[in-house]
């Protein structure tokens, strides 16, 4: 699905990613954990195509295409989805209007027919139910006046609408209470399939009780320094990151 090789990225001349390697196959869930400042959100931003970052070295192959060579919107159209750590409020832009435009631009890109209004509304109803998002919120301005939990549910709602191949959830769990976390995780788990994959970026192990990863990676100082099965997350929760730092200096 995605193969990241020796990825180096910097912002304002400061190198954040320093040779990151990661391979994710279809059907897999990968968790990326790491201390603050390790480069977790940078990785998400770079993959989504945020222009503030400069890629100095490395490659990202996304299902046979060179991801780094594509504009943000084309990455999305190829099936990459980023659930934002801080979803943006866009006053006056209706959630469903913009989603309809997005879906139809994606379809046009793929040479498919536009989705009919009827089919679209039926999908909105189905997918908003999945994340228990009030249909009224679905038609309001994007994230405007939404609570933190509603914003995150709206991200998963959009993910459900767009049916991406690869979802990157950037700290989707932070700030959520346990009920909201369950709803979000349930949405993600329901959408999981053999032909899609997820990268779950988190600071806390708690999320991984609900979204069970196939692999856990530790990102530290711009590189993946340790990978393991889901139990690695528990070990990190228990021992913190210091032991990894110590291992590294050895």
């Amino acid at each position, binding site marked *: 699905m995605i193969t990241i090789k020796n990825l180096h990225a910097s912002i304002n001349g400061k190198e954040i990613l320093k040779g990151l390697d990661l391979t994710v196959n279809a059907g897999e869930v990968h968790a990326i954990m790491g201390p603050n400042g390790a480069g977790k959100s940078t990785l998400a931003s770079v993959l989504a*195509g945020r222009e503030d970052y400069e890629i100095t070295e490395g490659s990202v192959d996304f299902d046979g295409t060179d991801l780094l060579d594509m504009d943000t919107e084309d990455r999305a159209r190829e099936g990459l989805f980023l659930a934002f750590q801080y979803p943006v409020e866009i006053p006056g832009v209706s959630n469903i209007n913009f989603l309809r435009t997005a879906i139809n631009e994606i379809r046009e890109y793929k040479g498919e027919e536009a989705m009919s209004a009827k089919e679209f509304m039926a999908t909105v109803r189905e997918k908003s139910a999945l994340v228990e998002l009030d249909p009224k919120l679905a038609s309001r301005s994007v994230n405007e006046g939404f609570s933190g939990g509603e914003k995150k549910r709206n991200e998963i709602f959009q993910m459900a609408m767009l049916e991406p191949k690869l979802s990157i959830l950037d700290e989707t769990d932070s700030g959520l209470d346990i009920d909201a976390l369950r709803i979000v995780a349930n949405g993600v788990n329901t959408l999981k399939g053999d032909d899609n994959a997820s990268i779950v970026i988190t600071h806390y192990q708690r999320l991984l009780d609900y979204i069970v990863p196939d692999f856990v990676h530790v990102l530290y100082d711009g590189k993946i320094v340790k990978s393991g099965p889901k139990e690695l997350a528990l070990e990190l929760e228990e021992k913190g990151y210091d032991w990894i730092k110590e291992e590294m200096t050895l």
Partner: protein
Amino acid sequence: MLEGLTPTTILLDEKELNSAQDTLAKNQLPTTRMEAWKYTRVAKLGKTNYTSSEETVVSMDAYRIAADATTFVFVNGHFSEELSSDEIPAGVSISPLSACMEGEIASTNLVLEGEIFNALNTAFLTDGILIDIEAKATVEKPVQIIHVLKGEATLSNFKTIINAGDFSKAGVIQGFFAEDADKAFANVTSEISVGTNAFLTIDKIQYEAENTSHISTEQVSQENDSTFTINTITLNGGLVRNNLNIEVIGENCETNLNGAYLLKGKQHVDNHSVVDHKVPNCNSNELYKGVIDDKGTAVFNGKVFVRPDAQKINAFQSNGNVLMTDDASVNSKPELEIYADDVKCSHGSTTGQLDEEAVFYLRARGLSEKSARKLMVSAFIGDVLDKIENEDVLNFTHGLLKDRFGWDFE
């Protein structure tokens, strides 16, 4: 500037004509040293030798805003009988000023002294239109005034007079267009009186050309219990200045001023408004929003007076601007002068760029950059377009937005 022009043949009051001549003789064009013209340069108008030429337009297709309306067409200010409606609905009488008898045109409420564009308009008035709406008449079909500038260095001095009778209700659409017009100049005045408990709505669309000039002054007075609304949509025109002067002389009035301006190239659009609350118990709402692209420059100057003893006034004023480039600029100056103590007034002005984080967010969901920006601009300007009740006007506006900016907002 004036050599090629002939004095007006419209039967205006002799004293007014003298006053206008006097102002023209004694005054120069305003300079940016004058506060009211600080951000708008009009010097180039003085360097053009204007003529007032009669022209015709072949097709009205591009200019007909509402299909079902009583339409009066003027080209370079000259009345075009063959392009205008023959039938005038009940409850209203309409006449070009050139067909008015002596004494039929009431004395003006425009300020002529020191106001050079009003004086120019009066002394060299090309033609205009007189609309009398009878008391208690509800005029279902809007009256549509289409003005087209055509030819090189033509000057149209055009006037609209609207008398909305007591308890009447009517809508007037004004469309200003240009066709093969080079350095043409529309100098327009309107004298509008809104009678007791009358409702009058004006939808004004300005869509001239990038090298034309347009200066208009609307002088409005409102009697008791009346509602006056004007929606000004400015989408093309090299130099545009709109002066909107509202005198609220009756109690329990409502005044709504809405404006949307979208600029590109080197366009300059200046909206100046004065709402003068002279008496108590009135509401005024002003909402102007602009999107300025390329090297466009916009000016907003909105002034609200609340005179002594004009208590219980609610006056709200808001101006928002989005600058699409680093070269675009805006000068926004909302002003309140309040001499009464029991009033609710607010004003606000915002100027910014489109939120780039929001653009990125939308793109990350698969929207092209163009669609993302379009969607956000449409959301921004949509607040103003939502105020337009006439569907034909709204649809026409959307059509112009699509033609000129490639923005399909619907």
